[in-house]
């Protein structure tokens, strides 16, 4: 039956994993289209619009128009109570943007803190999730081991579950005197109360070395002293870094696994026969061939780590050193009714993520043309 034939043949979606496949698909359809030209089916124009308009309407109504409205809101003092288009909303120019970026005050300080927190979060999470994902993929791909399917499932499982549910589990593990602290006590370390601990990791190390807020570090940037900027991720943030590394590396492992499986065994064997050590083979053969997957994982990592929200929603209210710009935008809007400021932060973040996405597309494209 046609259904089954199609079912068997349909290859894995080549959206990101094998862009070459996608291109081939586009090419193929372009070719057949050329053949078909001239026999334009009647009503194709009408049906084309009929088919696409429900989806387009939803995207316009709940994605595109709202974004334009929200850009407008970021220049007003809307409080969220009345209609944003009513007369009680005032245009305030760049005031909202200034109050988070340049005007000294609580908003600027909170925004500065959020940016610092997120910077450290990205700096630690992206390398950790990438290395862990690659390591797991290599392990799961090694031919001498059995039950690889089981382990692949185990590693991927946290990625598909609810972020809220998993954060609750982590809050249980890391609560003061909880599972992690018990484990630490076995090796003679007295664990902190992770989630509410605001001390930065770098500060703790510097303090241990006898350095404590030298004079030059009092200079402030974005309402935060340099000493605070250099504090490193707080212990509370470390929990979120571990949590995100844990939930994302399974997905990224799949990217690497797909790439590893496309490396032909001939190449690997040839280099083995040439006398290359396993480490040399990994460095000189495997890693270069993994480059496209690596670029993809890194850039996706850099983009997604600026959007972390659910985990912060649960941990953030108790610990300001874990809030991120995304959460800050939510908090000032929905809790302090300062929607103008919230929108301004959201658009600063939006602009930044669009910039990262453009960089990513350039990188990935470069990689394909090589």
């Amino acid at each position, binding site marked *: 039956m*046609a259904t089954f034939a*199609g079912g068997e043949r*349909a*290859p894995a*979606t080549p*959206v*990101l994993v094998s862009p070459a496949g996608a291109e081939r*698909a586009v090419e193929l359809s372009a070719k057949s*289209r050329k053949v078909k030209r001239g026999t334009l*089916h009647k*009503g*194709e124009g009408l049906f*084309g*619009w009929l*088919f*696409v308009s*429900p989806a*387009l309407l939803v*995207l316009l109504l*709940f*994605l*595109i128009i*709202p*974004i334009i409205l929200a850009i407008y809101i970021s220049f007003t003092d809307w409080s*969220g109570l009345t*209609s944003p288009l009513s007369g009680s909303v005032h245009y305030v120019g760049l005031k909202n943007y200034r109050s988070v970026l340049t005007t000294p005050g609580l908003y600027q300080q909170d925004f500065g803190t959020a940016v610092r927190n997120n910077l450290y979060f990205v700096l630690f999470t992206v390398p950790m999730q990438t290395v862990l994902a690659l390591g*797991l993929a290599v392990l*799961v791909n*090694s*031919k*001498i*081991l059995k039950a690889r399917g089981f382990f692949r499932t185990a590693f*991927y499982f*946290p990625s598909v*579950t*609810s972020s*809220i549910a998993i954060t*609750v*589990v982590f809050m*249980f593990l890391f609560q003061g*005197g*909880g*599972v992690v602290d018990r484990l630490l006590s076995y090796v003679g370390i007295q664990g902190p109360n992770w*989630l509410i601990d605001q001390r930065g990791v770098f500060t703790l190390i510097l303090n241990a070395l006898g350095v404590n807020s030298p004079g030059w570090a009092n200079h402030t940037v974005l309402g935060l002293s340099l000493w605070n900027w250099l504090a490193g991720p707080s212990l509370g943030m470390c929990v979120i870094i571990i949590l995100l590394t844990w939930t994302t590396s*399974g*997905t990224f492992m799949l990217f690497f696994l797909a790439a590893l499986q496309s490396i032909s065994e001939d190449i690997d*064997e040839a280099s083995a026969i040439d006398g290359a*050590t396993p480490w040399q083979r990994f460095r000189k053969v495997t890693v270069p061939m993994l480059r496209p997957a690596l670029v993809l994982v890194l850039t*996706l990592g850099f983009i997604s780590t600026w*959007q972390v929200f659910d985990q912060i*929603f*649960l941990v953030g209210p*108790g610990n300001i050193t874990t809030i991120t710009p995304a959460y800050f*935008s*939510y908090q000032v*809007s*929905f809790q302090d009714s300062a929607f103008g400021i919230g929108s301004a932060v959201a658009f600063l*973040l*939006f602009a930044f*993520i669009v910039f990262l996405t453009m960089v990513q597309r350039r990188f990935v494209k470069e990689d394909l043309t090589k």
Partner: protein
Amino acid sequence: MTALNVSVPPGTRPRDRRVKTNVKRSLGYFALIVFALIFIGPFILQVATSFKTDPDASNNPLSLIPHPATISAWRQVFGIGAAGASTDFPRWFFNSVLVSTCITIGRVFLDSLAGYSLARLRFPGRRVVFGLVLGTLAVPGVVLLIPRFLMLKQLGLFNSYPGMILPIAVDATGIFLMRQFFLQVPEALEEAGKVDGASIWQVYWRVVLPVVRPGLITLTILSFQGSWNEFQFFQISTISPKYYTLTTGLANLVGGGLSAGNQYPLKLAAAALTIIPVALMFFKLQKYLVRGGMSGSVKG
């Protein structure tokens, strides 16, 4: 034998080779097991703790055996016995099922219609529409919280089921995914249908759609998983506890985050209830999820 794949400098004796492979294999298994414990351990502890009493959970957090064992947390989760508005789990579960089902139906139906149109039907303005869809792929969800709240208020849909469903009943990723599947269908198949005098709708519904069944299954699973786990959007589109889903209900129960120590068996049981449906689907239909999970939807 697999051992043949292992590299050896020329001249090494076979026995050394075998020993080396065995060492390598044991190290490999050791690493796999350690990581498997790290990845699955928390879930095992979670289930174990959900059968503990509150004092037992905080005094012996590491123990895998509840002492004494109790099902009181699970009784509460299933709505047996006392349940206040803040712990109305059956209602949250019902809401999650209702909302996720509607969103999934919407996405599967509308995304594939749009995907087919963009893949196969030539209509004026198609390039612009496709560009728009591609463009919205890059919009991060967190940026949409305020805009969507604003629009729901404006349309009078805030704090209602339609308001929870409609805005995410279509997603650009799904349209793109389905378009890729439709592009791979041989056009001759449609030509045959058209020759028979079937309308475009009939060709789509009877001929093309059955062929892309793997795509539809992938999209169904991704949509259900995505909407079941959705939190941000439900958090901003509703305010009454009667619209709590498992995710928003659980998040608000845990609240300010740090009501440390108390009621962990209950919270973990509720979290398990949130995880289980997706877990069952995952183990049953893993290959589709693996395929679809890589199509760009990376959890933030």
